[in-house]
């Protein structure tokens, strides 16, 4: 009995770690000029500093709602910040109006649709969701997160 309970717990743990360790990837329309972008460029785009691709084409970042695990994971992997930090960051910029936070889409599916449909957006999804319609321009392996 206890053996069964123990093996069950072990399986659950495996499953959780598997989902937590899931790699996020930056995706863009395959029509863009670049195949990859650097982390620096990704940060510039997401944090509002320079919303362009290295080629000069506009790049509007898309964000996921805060209720999922992906958004927090994304910012942790990208700039190593918690969501509260990111919120505070954007709150400071509200008054100047010079920069605005990324547009939030409803779900991963919507994110995937938007990137597949438009060339001037950039988004992030779990690697598992990626399909042929989008191009992975940067990988954010969870092990590589600092």
């Amino acid at each position, binding site marked *: 009995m206890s053996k069964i309970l123990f093996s069950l717990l072990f399986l659950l743990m495996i499953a959780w770690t598997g989902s937590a360790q899931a790699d996020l990837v930056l995706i863009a329309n395959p029509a863009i000029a670049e195949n990859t972008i650097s982390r620096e460029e990704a*940060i510039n785009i997401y*944090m*509002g*500093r320079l919303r362009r691709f290295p080629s000069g084409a506009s790049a509007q970042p898309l964000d996921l709602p805060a209720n999922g695990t992906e958004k927090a994971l994304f910012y942790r992997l990208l*700039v*190593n*910040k918690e969501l509260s930090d990111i919120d*505070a*960051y954007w709150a*400071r*910029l509200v*008054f*100047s*109006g*010079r*920069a605005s936070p990324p547009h939030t889409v409803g779900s991963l599916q919507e994110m995937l649709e938007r990137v597949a449909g438009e060339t001037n957006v950039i988004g992030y999804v779990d690697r598992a969701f990626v399909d042929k319609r989008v191009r992975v321009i940067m990988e954010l392996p969870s092990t590589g997160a600092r």
Partner: protein
Amino acid sequence: MRNFWSNSILIRTTFILAISAGLVGALFIDLAASVIADRFHHQAYSRLGELIDTVERTVSIACYLPDKPLAGEVVQGLMKNREIASIAIFDAKKEQLAGLSRPIEHVDTDMHGLPEIRRPVISPFDPDSVVGEIVLIPDHMEITRRIAQNVDDVKGLLGIELAVLSLVVISMIVLMVIRPIRRISDDLHAMNAPAGDKLTPPRGHANDEIGQVVENVNALVDDLVCALREEQTLRLYREAGEKKYLAIFDNAEAGICLLETDGRITSHNPAFARMTGLCLAPDPLENSPSLKKLHCRYPAKIEAALSTCLQTDITVTEDIELLDSGSDSLWLHLILTPIGQGLVQGIISDITELTLAKQAAEDASKAKSAFLASMSHELRTPLNAIIGFAQLLEMDKLTPLFDEQKIAVGHIMTSGRHLLNLINEILDLARIESGNLNIHLENIELAPLIEEAVSLSLPSATTRQINIRQLCSNEIAVRADLQRLRQILLNLLSNAIKYNRQGGSVTLFCDWVSDYVRITVVDTGLGIPDERRPEMFQPFHRLGAERTSIEGTGIGLVVCQRLIKAMGGRIGFDSTTGVGSRFWIELPPAAGTREIATAVSVAASKNNSTKSQVFSNRVVYIEDNLTNINVMKHVFRLLPDIELLTAKNAESGLEMIFETQPGLVLMDINLPGMTGLEAIRRLKTHPDTASIPVIAVSAAAMLGDVELGLKSGVTSYLTKPFDVPDLIAQVRKALNKTATSEIGLI
């Protein structure tokens, strides 16, 4: 001001407090200001740093984006702080994102601005990348103003504190020092110390310094009062002493005066004025009288006495004779005593009566001596005839006497000798009592002297069959007068023989008794009863012997006692009735180094009358008394080989001597005209006659006369009445000597 300053503790304290408070305050404020400024600067910088910290993130974002409005917001926000003079935010490209400066009010005062704060701005996402810079310049004016405000606050507080402290100190001094001291001072003024008043310490100060001061003052007052009382007592004593002295000074019989060193009299008593006639002038400016001005016989004596007194600092006495009171002179005894400070006290007493009495006594004594001398001469001259003729009668071989006549002549001779003895002893006693006794102390060896005395006493001892034993050792010597000691010994021996029993014995011995030499004479006589002891040394007491047949004058022991005393010795005796007596004399021993005079034995040489045959056989006899010449002629009948020439005075005698050149001169001393002494002097000075021996034959038996005679150069001195055998012996001896020396010359 000065007076006021030094008179008040309060003012001094206030002044010093003010100065020290000011100095301390200023110093402290100075120090405080620099500390405050330092502190405030430091605080201002840290405050500004913290301020930057609070906006850091926002600035970081502003620089990162870069976002000028956001930077401007931040800058404006920061500028609300008045300590900031200007602020600027630069992005990574050194481009200013935002900047604001406060308008500068007075530039000239801000010569050295405060250093600016530069802070690099780090990227919000990458701690390694710098995205901009924030530069902040603090407002020096504002900071200085705030510092000044703080310092002013501290200054004010310190001032108040110092003022309050000073007030407290001053009031404490007033309450705890000045007031009690004033009270003590008032009490001191009101205090009557001799009546026993005491200071009481102010309330609450009994045990502190003020209380101690009060105690010390009380102790001092006690001491002073004690000293004062002693002083008063001493003054009373001194006054009493002075009164006493003045009473003595004024009423003394003796004259008292005070002298300066030069003899001036500064004060004297009435007796002094009365005696000397000197008087102190009432006006001190006039010359005061001097002791040296006294009109006396030897004024130098006073000066000498005064200078001696001053030099030696001891009391000097002097007798002076004042001449100025009429015919009689006044004798004064002067005592000078140095009493210090260059003053001399002189005391004079009138000794006129004393001096006159002394002179009278001396005159009387001289008269007595002269009387005794002449009496001696007058008594001896007839005795000479009596004894001389009796001896001649006895010795006359041509017409021998009958037995009865012989007995009668014997009585005459015995009585004559007794009388002669008596006269001699009375003379001695008189001489001793008049103080004319001449003692010549010399070192004398006892043994020869005792031998001589014993041999002289032997004849009388032999007649009574008394045995004399002499037990004196040779070494003992004494210090005495030879003649007198001989006299004493002879006297003691003759007494021991006279008062002995027939066939008894006399023992003589010497020994040491403590520091004296004792000569003891022991006899086997009747002894002296104890109750008669006190009479032993009284003149003319013979203890009943006057009723016996024993000859004696009762003076011998008295003379012995006086002589022994004069020589510094003692005489004494002890006796047992029926067994005998022991008489002893004690004399000081001879002084070691002196030459010991040996008593020249002149023991009568009885056997040289016939031996020498060769002599010049002419003798000149100068004598004014016919009886004496007759005696001498009868004596020389016994010497048929000698020619006797006589002269009646010195002048004719001298002529005779020059003409006849005799072998011997017999010279009387008391001659009419030229005296015998003068004649002897002439003989001895003339070369022709100087060698002729001279024998003085005189009744002048006083010691002085004998001495004079011997000094003049006579061979020997015979006193009348002379002993005939002795005379014959001396004549033969002298002639024999002359003859021998003549033979030697040829």
